[in-house]
């Protein structure tokens, strides 16, 4: 017990200025969900805490499936997901839930092929066949055709996927189901699917970890995880036939068409979007809030936070590999935030 007291008393750097000096009491809000936006959410919550030292938002990245589940159980105040909730899930909720987009991100195919330093090109159908287990070695003609001039080894392909319920999986499955009818029937779209082949990693972190350590493997992760861990990732062929590399720019282009026709509940898929230069495996990511929560104080704080995230918060997006929301979407969202009952 002595140790506890001593450690708690020791200065905590920039994180823990004395809460007693502020007029407002400390409020802690718990949320859970997607690992896809974890890097930017953790940045946002830390920044917000610096601006408002009495507000501590605790976000645990346990996967989109987890976020939805815990929100439905009401064991967390807000959820976060990259795969929008289904109508059934919304119906089973104890109260109406709002989807609030925060940023745009991209899912990229990361790979670890011994001896290959070139950037590999992939097409939707080839990725689908890989994940169906139909393409088994790196020098398969299907891959070679897309990558003329690259010396591909005869190494076996190890498929890496998520072992937990994941919105990143949802986005990837959504894309593969659009480009491959066989994939749609055999596997389908969900946060957790029946994988035909492969090794499971927990979270975006687990998948990048496995790919970086396993020669001959391929996996799918959110762009920032590939950038931060410096794992090579390939280009993907979009609906217009171009091979596009994921970037803030190409993701923004993917959202352009959808932004114009945004549905009022913000649940929209932008994978395999039309338009030159758009990256085909892009997606919005959402924070989920009850429209009429019991804890009004927390609701007020979260709404304030969302306003900050939609304006100042967007500044941090590009550095971390996410695309900021289109202005039209931000306007619609600010209006939607009014509907959350804070008193």
């Amino acid at each position, binding site marked *: 017990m002595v140790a506890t007291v001593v450690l708690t008393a020791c200065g905590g750097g920039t994180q823990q200025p004395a809460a007693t000096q502020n007029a407002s009491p400390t409020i802690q809000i718990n949320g859970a969900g997607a690992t896809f936006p974890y890097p930017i959410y953790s940045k946002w919550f830390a920044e917000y805490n610096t601006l408002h030292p009495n507000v501590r938002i605790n976000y645990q990245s346990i996967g989109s499936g987890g976020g939805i589940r815990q929100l439905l159980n009401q064991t967390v105040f807000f959820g976060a997901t990259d795969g929008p909730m289904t109508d059934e899930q919304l119906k089973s909720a104890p109260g109406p839930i709002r989807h609030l987009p925060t940023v745009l991100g991209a899912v990229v195919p990361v790979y670890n092929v011994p001896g290959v330093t070139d950037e590999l090109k992939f097409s939707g159908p080839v990725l689908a066949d890989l994940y169906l287990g139909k393409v088994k070695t790196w020098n398969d003609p299907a891959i070679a055709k897309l990558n003329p001039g690259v010396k591909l080894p005869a190494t076996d392909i190890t498929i890496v996927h998520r072992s937990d319920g994941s919105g990143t999986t949802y986005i990837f499955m959504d894309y593969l189901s659009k480009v491959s009818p066989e994939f749609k029937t055999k596997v389908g779209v969900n946060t957790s699917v029946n994988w035909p082949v*492969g090794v499971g990693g927990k979270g975006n972190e687990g998948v990048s970890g496995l790919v970086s350590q396993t020669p001959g493997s391929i996996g799918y992760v959110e762009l920032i995880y590939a950038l931060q861990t410096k794992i090579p990732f390939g280009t993907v062929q979009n609906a217009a036939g171009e091979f596009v590399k994921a970037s803030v720019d190409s993701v923004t282009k993917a959202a352009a068409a959808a932004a114009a026709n945004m549905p009022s509940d913000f649940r929209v898929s932008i994978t395999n979007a039309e338009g030159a230069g758009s990256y085909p495996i892009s997606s919005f990511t959402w924070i989920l809030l009850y429209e009429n929560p019991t804890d009004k104080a927390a609701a007020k704080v979260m709404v304030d936070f969302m306003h900050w995230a939609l304006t100042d918060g967007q500044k941090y997006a590009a550095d971390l590999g996410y695309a900021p929301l289109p202005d039209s979407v931000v306007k619609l969202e600010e209006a939607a935030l009014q509907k959350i009952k804070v008193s």
Partner: protein
Amino acid sequence: MRSRDLGFRLVIGVFAAALLLIVTAIGFELARQSWLSIQKFGFEFWRTSTWDPVAGEFGALPFIWGTLYSSILALVIATPVALGIAVFVSELCPPVLRSPLIFLTELLAAIPSIVYGLWGIFVLVPFVRLLETWTPEALRALPLFSGPPLGVGMLAAGLVLAVMVVPFTSAVAREVLKTVPTTQREAAYALGATRFEAIRAAMFYARTGIVGAIMLGFGRALGETMAVTMVIGNNPQVSLSLFAPQYTMSAVIANEFTEATDELYLSALVEIGLVLFIITLLVNGLSRALIWTMARRVPSKVTA
């Protein structure tokens, strides 16, 4: 005075009853939460291989297979080592080494599971990957060694579990051997037995207890979660291959519990927990019964 004694007995009896209450509560709660899944799938649950959250089809066979395979593999590797240690420490080693050796094996038992997992991911898995890559082609053709050399998989899981099980089995075996009356050994030596033959006689005498010790190690391996989930590959498939990534009951619960998005999914996971609870109950119960039977034949007390 008697009523005060009765009062005392009642009061502390309530605390003791808490233990009974907790165990029954666990069983009850597990059964209650898995009821939905039990009703829907019945016994098919134990025989089906599909684990499909999208379609709502759940079968626990791959997990039961993975748990049993990894635990039995661990036993095969750990038992000779554990018995060797028990024999060495109780019969063969110089007395001055005895205490330090016992301390060191206890240390193995005390290392937290997560630290085994950490070491597993960063040290054992690359080593196993190396082993797998070096496996000669001739062996690779066998189903036992088929598949790409990932490193993560059944072999890595079996190895980690074996290291974790050794101290348990060896500690109990040691205790059991201590209770073999010295007359047994003396008789053997008097008849001209070599060390090996005398010890073999002692072990034969203690065979029930030793089997109990082995089963205790088995029970430990069955329930292990963290270290296994970090090195087994998390793929629900029934595969004979040591190189294949597979899944265990405790690992799937750890990975998917917080996110089971619908009632049936959650119920299926809890049912797996129930199955695990029952299996470990039976194995541990059996092992304690064996050790206790051994203790009854012998005047001194065996602690397990």
